[in-house]
């Protein structure tokens, strides 16, 4: 179910526009969630808080991927590349320039966006399975660069010893403070995605997802919109990467590898593509399954993960159906046509 973005602009004659109280109601769970997340360190033990922080980082990655998969209809297998680029950029700047708070975040956003622009200009030209493959190739090439460029990335050992982020010169020296930093960054990134999705631009992205040929007939040139969405998603993924660098204090090539990208996709599909908040829940499930249940399975976590993949596809078709990859214009409609 896609959010009804243009509802704000409903003329008085319309009947189905949600009244203001309902809009407030819709914002309420969001606000409550943020408050709850903010209060978490006060009553949770350190490890639970750390897990929560890790979920937030991954949730922002999943939500940014959802802007591509669920809202624009571009299923990317290489989104972790921008996550990783942002993480390396933020980590490098923290080590070599400054850990002062907004700087690493901005660096993550900038580098993630630039990397997405540098690769997106040709990636978004392709469609369907070719897009899947091209993004997979981009992801692998970027991972390989991270692994080979020792002097900057630390190669396969990763970029380690990243300082804690600091606010006004004071490092965020415990799990709770770090959690608040991650939360702030994640809320910020999520708000950007939300705003983009609810904007006229976001409506165009949904149009492209639903029916790209028709968009051309309406006078839209989808390429520019897709590229912009790709860059925004890459930029927000870069922010998530910067949060990872702060939270994990280590960035390695595997953070931008295929596994990370596939898990992010899984989160999107579990939660329901196109909703932005759904993938965040999906991310929580994925992280909990991997980190909390996985280790109790004698090292057979991948087995459980595989079962989850299969189950999600069969049991949660709605989450997946929301994707509506472009399989020919109006396929569903023509099937419903009366005869």
């Amino acid at each position: 179910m896609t959010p009804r973005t243009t509802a704000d602009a409903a003329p008085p004659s319309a009947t189905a526009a949600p009244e203001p109280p309902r809009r407030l109601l819709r914002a309420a769970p969001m606000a409550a969630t943020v408050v709850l997340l903010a209060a978490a360190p006060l009553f949770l033990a350190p490890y639970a808080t750390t897990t929560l922080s890790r979920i937030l980082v991954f949730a922002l990655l999943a939500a940014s991927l959802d802007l591509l998969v669920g809202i624009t209809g571009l299923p990317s297998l290489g989104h972790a590349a921008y996550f990783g680029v942002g993480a390396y950029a933020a980590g490098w700047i923290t080590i070599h320039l400054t850990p002062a708070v907004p700087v690493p975040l901005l660096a993550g956003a900038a580098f993630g966006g630039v990397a997405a622009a540098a690769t997106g200009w040709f990636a978004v030209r392709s469609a369907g399975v070719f897009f899947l493959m091209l993004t997979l190739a981009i992801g692998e090439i970027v991972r390989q660069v991270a692994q080979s460029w020792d002097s900057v990335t630390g190669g396969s050992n990763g970029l380690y010893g990243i300082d804690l982020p600091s606010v006004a010169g004071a490092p965020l020296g415990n799990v709770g403070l770090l959690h608040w930093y991650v939360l702030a960054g994640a809320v910020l990134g999520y708000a950007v995605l939300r705003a983009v999705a609810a904007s006229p631009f976001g409506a165009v992205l949904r149009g492209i997802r639903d029916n790209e040929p028709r968009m051309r007939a309406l006078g839209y040139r989808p390429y520019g919109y897709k590229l912009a969405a790709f860059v925004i998603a890459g930029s927000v993924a870069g922010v998530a990467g910067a949060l990872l660098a702060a939270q994990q204090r280590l960035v390695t090539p595997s953070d931008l590898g295929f596994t990370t990208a596939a898990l992010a996709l899984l989160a999107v599909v579990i939660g329901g593509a196109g909703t932005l908040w759904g993938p965040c829940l999906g991310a929580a499930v994925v992280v909990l399954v991997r980190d909390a249940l996985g280790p109790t399975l004698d090292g057979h976590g991948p087995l459980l993960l595989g079962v989850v993949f299969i189950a999600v596809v069969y049991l949660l078709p709605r989450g997946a159906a929301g994707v509506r990859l472009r399989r020919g214009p109006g396929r569903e409609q023509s099937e419903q046509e009366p005869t």
Partner: protein
Amino acid sequence: MLTWLDANLVSILNGLAIGSLLFILAVGLSLVFGMMDVLNLAHGALFLAGAYLGHLFVGQQAGWASFAGALGVAAVIGALAGGGLSVMTEPLAHRSHLDQALLTLGVALVVAELLSIAFGNDVQSVAAPPGLDGSTVVLGSTYPVYRLVLIGIGALLAVAVHVVIERTRLGLLVRAAVADREMVSALGVDERRVKAAVFGIGSALAMVAGVLGGPIYGARPGLDSTVLILALVVVVIGGLGSVRGALIGALVIGQVESLGRVLLADLASFVLFGALALVLVLRPQGLFGARAQART
């Protein structure tokens, strides 16, 4: 020029051997995709299953009987597994590529993990059949006999697949289905059975490739994803749904992985995906794919 050729002839030959194996692996993937739009990410796990099957039957002391037995059993199990996958993907026929990719990725994870439970995490090696396990001198260099034989097997299978696709009724249906899926139903043929047949043949070839690849690659956790990536690259470079494309793609990647790594030794890690990206940027539908636009 001659000295260059002299120095690299073995690498070119080796590229042919690797290309042959890749063709056997990739042709099934290509047909299944071309026909049913199913991106089968479990293909690599089938290869690995074949490799472990080879290990189980053949182990370190190869006999011709056990090797042939492994090939036969691999073909049968592969065909059954393919049929199973065909049934599993049936409910997803009208869903997105992403759903199918996630489903088969899940299957791949489960199969690979079950294999690791059954065979452990150690590297297992598989011996080549007697007589083929030695090396011979080719063009002045020592070269394993088994790899030479592999080139022959690859050529043989390429011809066989070509004949099946071009000369038999099943081949006709497959070609028709690749061109236009609805048309097959219009011919009064149960489309699902054609799909199951193609899936079965493709998966059988993947497992056979696993047995054949055993003496070169061995059997170990993680091999599945490595060969899957190779097969995907082959298929995408060659163009989806085309036997000829799979053959050319396999030969190209065989050379990229062999000669390319010799010539661009410093960039060895980048040549594979570099080649893929290059092809897709220049020709987004692959070298032999004609239907990129229709397939969006």
